[in-house]
């Protein structure tokens, strides 16, 4: 569960969502990822660290460069949890609906 908290916290930030959108195209160097954003190198590194700790991306060193890519496993567990949560609430609303129908109308 803690992993999921970290994942959703990571996804709450638009810059990090934009970074993930970039990585959907394929792996990228830190320089490529940073390019659209008017923020410092250290700030980008912090975003990448948050995404990595949330298991959403993986970083590997290739020569002089850090290369980032999506971690499908991390996305899968976040998605599974979300599906479960959705199913739970759908079920809860159905039950609520049944319950409300049983209550006799007061006039």
């Amino acid at each position, binding site marked *: 569960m803690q992993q999921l908290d970290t994942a959703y916290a990571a996804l709450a930030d638009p810059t990090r969502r934009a970074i993930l959108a970039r990585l959907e*195209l394929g792996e990228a160097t830190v320089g490529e990822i940073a390019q*659209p954003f008017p923020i410092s190198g250290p700030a980008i590194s912090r975003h990448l660290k948050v995404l990595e700790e949330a298991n959403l991306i993986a970083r590997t060193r290739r020569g002089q460069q850090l290369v980032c890519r999506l971690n499908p496993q991390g996305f899968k567990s976040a998605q599974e949890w979300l599906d479960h949560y959705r199913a739970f609430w759908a079920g809860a609303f159905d039950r609520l609906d049944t319950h409300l129908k049983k209550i006799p109308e007061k006039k």
Partner: protein
Amino acid sequence: MSATTTINPVLEIRRLFDAPPDVAFDAWLEREQWQAWIGPEGCRCDVPLLEPKVGGRYRLHMHLSDGREIPVEGVFKVIDRPNILAFTWGWALSGHPDTLVTLVFRAKDGQTEITLTHQGLPTEEDRFSHGKGWNSTLNKLALYVKGELV
């Protein structure tokens, strides 16, 4: 940010627009507004579809002067008004994979600086041609946000 060696060609354009960020931002996310200016100069565009939400799709048709019609399709990935907008950009009839356009809006002395990056373009030639296309398109946006696009 210091430049590092990049694997793929990335197009980056940074320009100033004479409007506040929310005005510049909304010009990209409302169907009628987009239709008014999107596309290079001399090229009329229809925007038959624009779903302004994350995961929403858009479709635009560029009408070239020689009568050809070029469809473009994509999906909105990030909408953070009025700071960041990201959407995929796909030439519907080509075999090219989807590419990604990221726009970052920054207020600057009553104006808005937009940084447009177009990533995932397969070749250096694509980067060059898309650079021409976006610069020409942004000329129209610059006039549009001032209410001067005819």
